[in-house]
Each structure stands twice: as structure tokens, then as C-alpha cells.
């Protein structure tokens, strides 16, 4: 702070601080508090607002436990409230997307950071970035076309003689969430790539060579030297991709099958279709809380500190 004042003077420093305070207070904390507050009050017609029914209640939160459905998870039939089912699916498949992006991004990040010649890096990064210039909506629709029954993917596979009949990708081959997982992976892989790339770039190449010189096969060098060094990058990539995937509304809406429900869609339905902002707010709060807990548990499991991610 003193350093800031010395560099920019009291006036500018005050402006910086006020802007940051405005951002955090007015654009982050206040709306969330308002949501939290609203989530504890019932959805009422305007006439009854402030009336005897407008009292503190947990009924919005209880709604998530209503409407049990019969479903099965990996062949095991269970009875579960429909929104909890959506919720668990969303967290599970977001974790799957995170895992998929990690599997794709790590080798690519390593290649860019340590294998590719430095002269080709700007070109390669540009090639990776160009798709990001297209809006997410357009990219999701592009994938809708690619995956559609009479689309190019089936045509290609049929043309190559790999399949005889078209596959209904959007209904899902393995699960009904296939299309969502594929498209989310595509959309968010760069959010995984760049933190890992940055982390690996800072690794001294001599350490990789030292490990190899001591007899280490490539996989052990990665396991013992590269991955531990890249762990903060991997962690921040994972947190970003998980949160973005779990919070995605557009991709599941565009490419999701009729059987695939994503929790943000449920929240959206409460807000937009039911116009019940109070229940929507309650659902949002549950979702936010559980996702944060999930991330913290994952960080504990992999022994990553919050300060590592901030780097």
C-alpha cells in the first residue's frame, strides 16, 4: 500500500482502492447476499409481500428433496429426488470433463513448454487461440451440427467404413451426457492448458535431463519431477474447468439430450420459467456451496494450497 502511494500518489491510490472495493462489494458481495437473503423467503404474489406469509422459511431448500424418481446409476436402480439426481450428475460429469481436459492438456502443455522449438511457439499458441475468438454459442452449435445424426462425424465414420449405421451421438453412446462432456471438454481445454503450460515452462530443463541421466524412464520423470512441479498449474486449471463446466448453461442447452439435465438448467428454470427467484436463489446457494466444498476436498486430497493456485 505504501509502495502504491509512493508510486502513484494518494489520489490515484484511492481511486484504485475504491474501484476494487466497488467491484467486490457492489458486484460480488451484495448480489450474493441479496440472493442468500431472498432464498430464505417464500415466493409470493406481489400483494402478499410483506404480509403475514412473508416470513423466514427453509421451504425453498426443502424443494430439492421433493419428487423422487426411479433411475439407475451404472446399472444400480435407485430412488432419488429428481433435482438431487441432476445435481449429482452435474458434479460427476463436470469432474469427468475436468479429467478429460487434464488428460488432453497435460501432454500438449509439456510439448509446448519443453519439446516444441521456441520459434514455433507463437504460431502454435495462435492456432490454439483462434477458436477462442468464436463465441461459445457458435462453437456449441457447430458441435451440434458435427454430432447430429446426418452430420459430418457420422458421414466421415461411414465413409471410412468404421461404422455401417449412423450413431445418435446426442442421445449418448455411453451415457446420455456424452455430447455435453465432449463439447465442454472442447470449450474449456485451454483453461486447463495455459496454467499447466505456464507451470511447466518455469521448470528447469536440466532437472528433466538429470532424472533421465539417473536412469529414469519418461513416465517416472513426469511422475516425480514434472507433475510435482506443475501441480499448482494443474490445480488451478482443474478448479477453473470444473467451475466453468458445472456452471455452464449454454452448452447443455444446445447439445444436451432430452435425458441429460444440467443443474444450471434447473436453476434457470426456477428463475425464468417458474419466475420463482426465491427457490432459484436457494438452488444457486446449494450449488455454490457444494461446488466449493468439492473443490476444497479435491485440493486436500491432492495436497494443494490455495496460495499455490493464486500464483
Amino acid at each position, binding site marked *: 500500500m505504501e509502495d502504491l502511494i509512493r508510486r502513484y500518489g494518494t489520489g490515484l491510490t484511492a481511486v484504485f482502492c475504491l474501484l476494487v472495493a466497488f467491484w467486490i462489494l457492489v458486484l460480488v458481495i451484495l448480489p450474493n447476499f441479496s440472493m442468500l437473503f431472498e432464498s430464505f423467503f417464500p415466493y409470493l404474489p406481489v400483494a402478499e409481500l410483506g404480509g403475514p406469509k412473508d416470513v423466514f422459511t427453509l421451504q425453498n431448500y426443502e424443494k430439492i428433496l421433493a419428487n423422487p424418481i426411479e433411475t439407475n446409476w451404472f446399472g444400480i436402480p435407485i430412488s432419488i429426488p429428481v433435482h438431487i439426481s441432476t445435481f449429482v450428475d452435474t458434479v460427476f460429469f463436470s469432474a469427468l470433463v475436468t479429467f478429460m481436459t487434464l488428460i488432453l492438456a497435460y501432454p500438449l502443455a509439456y510439448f509446448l513448454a519443453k519439446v516444441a522449438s521456441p520459434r514455433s511457439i507463437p504460431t502454435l499458441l495462435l492456432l490454439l487461440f483462434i477458436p477462442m475468438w468464436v463465441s461459445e454459442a457458435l462453437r456449441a452449435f457447430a458441435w451440434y451440427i458435427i454430432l447430429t445424426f446426418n452430420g459430418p462425424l457420422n458421414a466421415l465414420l461411414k465413409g471410412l467404413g468404421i461404422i455401417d449405421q449412423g450413431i445418435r451421438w446426442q442421445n449418448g453412446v455411453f451415457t446420455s451426457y456424452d455430447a455435453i462432456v465432449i463439447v465442454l471438454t472442447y470449450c474449456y481445454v485451454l483453461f486447463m492448458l495455459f496454467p499447466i503450460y505456464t507451470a511447466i515452462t518455469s521448470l528447469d530443463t536440466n532437472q528433466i535431463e*538429470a532424472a533421465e*541421466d*539417473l*536412469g*529414469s*524412464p519418461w513416465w517416472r520423470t513426469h511422475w516425480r519431477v514434472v507433475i510435482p512441479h506443475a501441480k499448482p498449474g494443474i490445480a488451478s486449471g482443474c478448479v477453473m474447468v470444473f467451475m466453468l463446466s458445472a456452471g455452464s448453461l449454454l452448452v447443455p442447452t444446445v447439445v444436451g439430450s432430452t435425458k441429460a439435465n444440467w443443474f444450471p438448467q434447473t436453476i434457470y428454470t426456477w428463475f425464468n420459467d417458474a419466475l420463482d427467484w426465491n427457490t432459484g436463489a436457494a438452488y444457486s446457494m446449494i450449488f455454490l456451496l457444494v461446488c466449493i466444498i468439492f473443490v476444497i476436498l479435491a485440493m486436500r486430497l491432492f495436497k494443494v494450497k490455495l496460495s499455490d493456485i493464486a500464483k
Partner: protein
Amino acid sequence: MSAGIDLENVCCDFGTFRAVDNANVSIKPGEFFSFLGPSGCGKTTILRMVSGFIEPTQGAIKIGGKDMKGTRPNQRPTALIFQNLALFPLMPIWENISFGLEVRGVDKATRRKKAEDLLKLVDLPGAADKMVSQLSGGQKQRVAIARALAVEPQVMLLDEPLSALDLKLRQHMRAELRAIQKRTGVTFIYITHDQGEALAMSDRVGVMSQGRIQQIAAPRDIYDNPVNGFVASFVGENNIFEGEVGPVADGMAALNGAHGSFRARVLPEAQGKALKLYVRPEHTLLTKVKAAENSVEMEVTEVAFEGAFISVHGQAAGGKRLSAEVKNDGVTVVPAVGEKVFATFDAARALLLPDANVRG
């Protein structure tokens, strides 16, 4: 166990640049061999070729008589100590040292024991559970040596490992390295640009310039009988005279130049080339009267006290700079600045040498 290394007509090109040109060396098992040269002379490239990180463009590298072509660094019986040591900062010291054993599937208790034994060997007991960042430069150095020794290599490759240490520690580590080499009997290949280091530690030294090995000999021979001007200048100071070289008789020849006529030795391989006369300052005497031969008058311009000896710099006719070293033995008279003296040297101590062996 240790193995010999043979480099046979080894060349290494980076694009159109030839980093190493036709290197031929035969390093004996258990030898302490140094490659000495200025930066960019190709010595590190040789080291990286022996360790397997670079494949030679031509020629063969044999370790223990076995051609290493196509053998990856993790399959070679070598251990490399990097210039920046490249210790693993996220592992404690003992895991650093036993990493090579972990790779070989040695169980944890044995690894731990071996790491502690090696720490004792490098005089660093009790550091097993520390992290790399907690050690000083010299301690890190020892850990790097222990880590390399842990895999029981037949050949140790050292890439200027002492360059980051301060002078005192460097001198101490020199002796230490030499002692470890004697104790383990492992072949050491040592890379350095510090001629003092190379001469003091090695059994033999290979002096390199511009990708070519200029001379391979024992330190004493490198210093006393350099094969060319580059080697003579790289390992020490010289007074250099130019002129016409007369016919060779009994390994001696005359050189007639602007500063008179001199006589000096000519090595057989130097005959027939353009030669200059090189004589070391410590072989240059300062006399009051002109000697019968090899004597040049100069005016003393600077007297520098170095401790064990005194460096006297002077100017001969035509601004030619000469220097001599006078022993600080209390007997030899040291001339004063401005005094006129004769720089005189023994013909047997002076050499007529060609320039460096470079590509034409």
C-alpha cells in the same frame, strides 16, 4: 567399476555450425580427464554426446568398448553433474540422492541407508531430511556428487560444477573432488574453462578451441610443451615475438624480427608452418647487461606485487609489451619503474609455435 571412453572421429553439427570437429580421444578407465577451453569451444557438446543427450553427427562414442549409438541417456553407465546441479527442489535430500536407486526398484529402507552412507562420503552427514533450499552452495554441490555416485556410474561427467562457488570453496571442492575420484576409482570427465582447475585436478587435459581438440597431454606437458599458440596462451601468460624463422637444426631454430634474433625450440610437428616465438614470463629473467643471446632491452612501466612473485611489465622498442615474473625470494633485485633492463630467456625455455589448429 569404471570404464574407458573412446571418441572416434566424432563430429557434431548444429545446422551448418560444426560444434565439434573430428574429436579423437581415448580416456582410460579410472582417469581424471578434463576438457579445457573457452565458452563455445564445443566441450559441453562433447559431454552431452557422451551422456547421450546429443547424438554425434559422425563418428562413434564407445564406453567400456561398447558403441553407445542409439543408447538413451537413461541406459548409459554415466552420471552427469550439471552446471547448475539440477537438484530436485521438491524432494528432500535423501530422495534426491536415492532417485537413481528408486528408478532401479530398490526398496525404501535400502535407499535411505545408501543415501546416508553417501552423505557421509561427501562429508554432509545429517542432511538427509533437509530440503535443497536449506543448503548452501557447497553443500548442494556435495549432494549433486552424492546423487551421481548413488547410481554407481562407470563414468562421471562434470559440467563446470564449481563455477558457481566462491574462490575459497572452489579450491576446497577441487581437492574434495579429486579425493572422491581416487577413492571411488570412477572415470571422471571434467569440463572447465578455468585452466587452474584443469591443470590442478586432471591426469590428462584436452585443450579445445573452435570445436577442435588442440592438444591432449598431462597438465605439465600442456603447460611446458604446448603444441600451438592457442594452447600456450590459454593455459598461461606469454611474451610473443614475430619474425622470419630460419632453418631447423637439432630441434632448434632462429627467429629474426624487429626485436633482434632469437633462438628457440621447434617441436617436430610444428616444422614448416608459420611460427611465432612464445616464452613464459616466469622463464624471462631481467638482467642489467645484455646476454649473449635471446636478450631484449625494455623500460619497466609497472611493477605489480603478487605475493609469492612480483610481476614486472615493460615496453621494448616499438611499444612491444613484455612481462617477467621475479621471485619474491629476498635475493633477486626487483627493478624500479622507469629503469632500463634486459629481458632475457633461455633458448630451451622458448618455443616456436604455429597458431591454433582451426579450419582453413
